C-alpha cells in the first residue's frame, strides 16, 4: 500500500512538472479563466451601477417637454444619446444593440388642459426580447414625469413609489456571479482538459510505455486526478485573489468549507473528463463526446432562468448546478458544508457513478 501511494505521488509530481512547462496549457488553465472572470466581472459591475442607453425623440416644443428632456440628463440611470434625432435612426441603433430603449415625446406632449395641468404620454420603445427594460424604464420615466410636474405646477401626487435596488447585505451582483464563473471554469478544466489529455498520450504511445511497467491503471488515474486537483486549486486561488482585489468580492463563508467543497467539485468534473479521455482511443472520439457532455452543463448557467419549471427541475440534477449553488451558498450566505446536504448528495452520487464508469471503460491504447 505504501509502495502503491509512493508511485502515485512520484507520478503526480512528474506530471505536474510537465504541466508547469507547458505554456499553452498554462494559458488555458490559469489565464483563460481569469480573462473570463474579468469579462464577467466587468459586465456585472456595469449591472451593479445599472444604466440604460436611450435616445429621446422630442416632437413637442412645450415648456414641459423641454424641462423633461433637461431633467433626463441629470438622471443617473439614463444615458441619453443626443446625437440621435430621428425615430428611424434610433430604431436602427436599437436594432444593433446600441440602445436599450427609445423615448418618444409626441407633438402634443406637455400641452396644458382646461384645468391648467400639463398632459401627454411618453412612448417607451423596447425590444420584444427584453420586456424588463421597458417596464423598468416606464417606472423611471413615470417618476421623472411626476417630479417635473411638481416643479412646474407644485402639484403632488398623493401616492408615490420610490425605487431602490436590493443590494442585500451589501452583496454585489458580482458576488453572485462569481460562483457561476468558478463552476464554469471547473467544468471546462475538468472535462476538456482531461478528455483531450489522455487520448493524446495514447496516440503518441506514452501510455503504452507506462503500461510496460508494473504501473496500475488506478495509479495512473489517481496521479492524474491529483495533478488536476492541484491545477484546479491553483486556478481557483488565482481567480479568488483577482475577484477580491479587482471586484471587491465579499466572502461570507468560511474558507475551509469553500476549499473542501471546491476539491469535491473539481474531482467530480475531472471524473467526467477522465471517463471520456480514458475510454476514447484518440481525439476524434473524445472531442465530440466532451462537447456533448460539457455543453449542456455550461448552457445551464445562461439559460436556466428561461427554462420552464419541469426542465428547471431536471437540470437541477446536473452535477454542475449543485456545484454552483453550493459555492454560492458558502460564499454569499455563509453556509457550511453541513448545511449543503442535498448538494453534496447529488454530487456524491454523480462522483460514484462517473468514477465507476471511468475505471470500467479505461483503455491503455
Amino acid at each position, binding site marked *: 500500500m505504501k509502495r502503491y501511494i509512493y508511485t502515485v505521488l*512520484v*507520478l503526480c509530481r*512528474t506530471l505536474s512538472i*510537465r504541466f508547469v512547462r507547458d505554456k499553452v496549457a498554462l494559458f488555458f488553465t490559469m489565464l483563460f479563466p481569469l480573462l473570463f472572470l474579468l469579462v464577467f466581472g466587468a459586465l456585472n459591475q456595469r449591472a451593479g451601477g445599472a444604466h440604460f442607453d436611450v435616445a429621446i425623440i422630442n416632437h413637442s416644443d412645450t415648456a414641459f417637454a423641454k424641462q423633461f428632456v433637461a431633467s433626463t440628463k441629470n438622471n443617473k440611470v439614463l444615458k441619453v444619446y443626443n446625437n440621435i434625432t430621428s425615430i428611424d435612426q434610433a430604431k436602427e441603433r436599437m436594432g444593433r444593440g446600441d440602445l436599450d430603449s427609445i423615448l418618444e415625446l409626441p407633438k402634443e406632449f406637455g400641452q396644458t388642459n382646461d384645468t391648467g395641468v400639463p398632459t401627454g404620454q411618453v412612448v417607451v420603445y423596447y425590444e420584444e426580447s427584453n420586456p424588463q427594460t421597458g417596464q423598468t424604464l416606464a417606472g423611471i420615466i413615470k417618476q421623472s414625469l411626476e417630479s417635473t410636474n411638481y416643479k412646474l405646477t407644485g402639484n403632488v401626487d398623493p401616492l408615490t413609489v420610490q425605487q431602490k435596488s436590493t443590494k442585500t447585505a451589501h452583496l454585489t451582483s458580482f458576488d453572485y456571479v462569481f460562483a457561476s464563473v468558478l463552476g464554469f471554469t471547473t467544468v471546462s478544466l475538468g472535462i476538456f482538459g482531461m478528455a483531450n489529455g489522455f487520448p493524446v498520450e495514447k496516440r503518441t*504511445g506514452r501510455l503504452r510505455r507506462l503500461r510496460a511497467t508494473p504501473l496500475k491503471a488506478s495509479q495512473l488515474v489517481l496521479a492524474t486526478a491529483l495533478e488536476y486537483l492541484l491545477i484546479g486549486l491553483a486556478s481557483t486561488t488565482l481567480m479568488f485573489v483577482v475577484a477580491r482585489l479587482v471586484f471587491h468580492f465579499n466572502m461570507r463563508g468560511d474558507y475551509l468549507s469553500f476549499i473542501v467543497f471546491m476539491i469535491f467539485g473539481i474531482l467530480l468534473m475531472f471524473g467526467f473528463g477522465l471517463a471520456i479521455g480514458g475510454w476514447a482511443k484518440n481525439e476524434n472520439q473524445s472531442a465530440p463526446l466532451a462537447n456533448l457532455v460539457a455543453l449542456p452543463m455550461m448552457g445551464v448557467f445562461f439559460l436556466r432562468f428561461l427554462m420552464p419549471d419541469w426542465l428547471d427541475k431536471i437540470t437541477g440534477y446536473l452535477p454542475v448546478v449543485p456545484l454552483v449553488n453550493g459555492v454560492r451558498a458558502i460564499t454569499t450566505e455563509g453556509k457550511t458544508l453541513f448545511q449543503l446536504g442535498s448538494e453534496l448528495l447529488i454530487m456524491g452520487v454523480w462522483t460514484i457513478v462517473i468514477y465507476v464508469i471511468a475505471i470500467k471503460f479505461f483503455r491503455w491504447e
Partner: protein
Amino acid sequence: MATPILKVKGLRKSYGGQEAVKGISFEVAKGEVFGIVGPNGAGKTTTLEMIEALRPIDDGSVLLNGINVQQDPARVKQVVGIQLQSSSFYDRLKLTEQLRLFAGIYNVSIDPMALLQEVELTDKASSFVENLSGGQQQRFSIAAALVNSPLILFLDEPTTGLDPQARRHLWALVQHIKKKGITVILTTHYMEEAELLCDRVAVMDNGTIIALDTPKNLVKSLLKRGFTKAQHVEQANLEDVFIDLTGKELREA
C-alpha cells in the same frame, strides 16, 4: 543448454480468426542474446508482447524465471525491461526526471547519472527526450528499460531507422549489457546485426518458427543443403566504404 530463464510452450494468438502466432515453443538460456528475425507480419512483435504480459495469451504457456506470465503479469513486469517499437516517453521532462519516474514506478532507488553513463548520455541529462536524435532516443529507451535491473531485456527492432554509426554504437551497448549477465531478447530486420549480436536466432514466418539455431549453424546447414552463392571475393562492400569515408564517430545533434 544452460538453465533456461524463459520457457515458451505452444504459444498462440489470433486476431479476428486470423492466426498471428501458431503455437510456437522455444527456450532462452540465462545470459543469452536471443534473436527473433522474420519478415513483417511474421508475428515477432506479437510474440514478444505476449511474453511481456502486454497482450493476452490465447493458448500455450510462458514461464519467465519461473513466473507464469498469464497468472502473474504484474510480477513479470517487475523483472523485465522493455523497449517497445511504437511507444514514446513523456515530453517536457529531463532525462533524469524520466528515469526517476520509472524508479518511482518500480519502487527502486537509482542513480540516474550512472544509468545515463551506461548509455553514454550524461551530457544530455538535462535535455528533453523530444530533443534527442534517433540513436540517442533508442539508447535512452534502453536506459529506461534498465531502471529495474531486469533479468531479461526485450528490444523490439532497436536499430530500425538509425544511421550506420548509431547502429554500431547500439550494438556495442547490447554487447556491454550482455557482459553484465542480462539476458537479451531482440527482434531485427538486419541479418548482420543478428549474426553479430545473437547467440541463437529464431527465424519466424507466418506465425511459426521455421528455424532456430546459432547463426553459424544456420549458415552451415544452408551450405550443407548445397546452397552456393555466386562467388566474387570482395574485400569490402559499400557499407565499409561508407564507414571508411564518414568514420565511426557518432553523429548527433
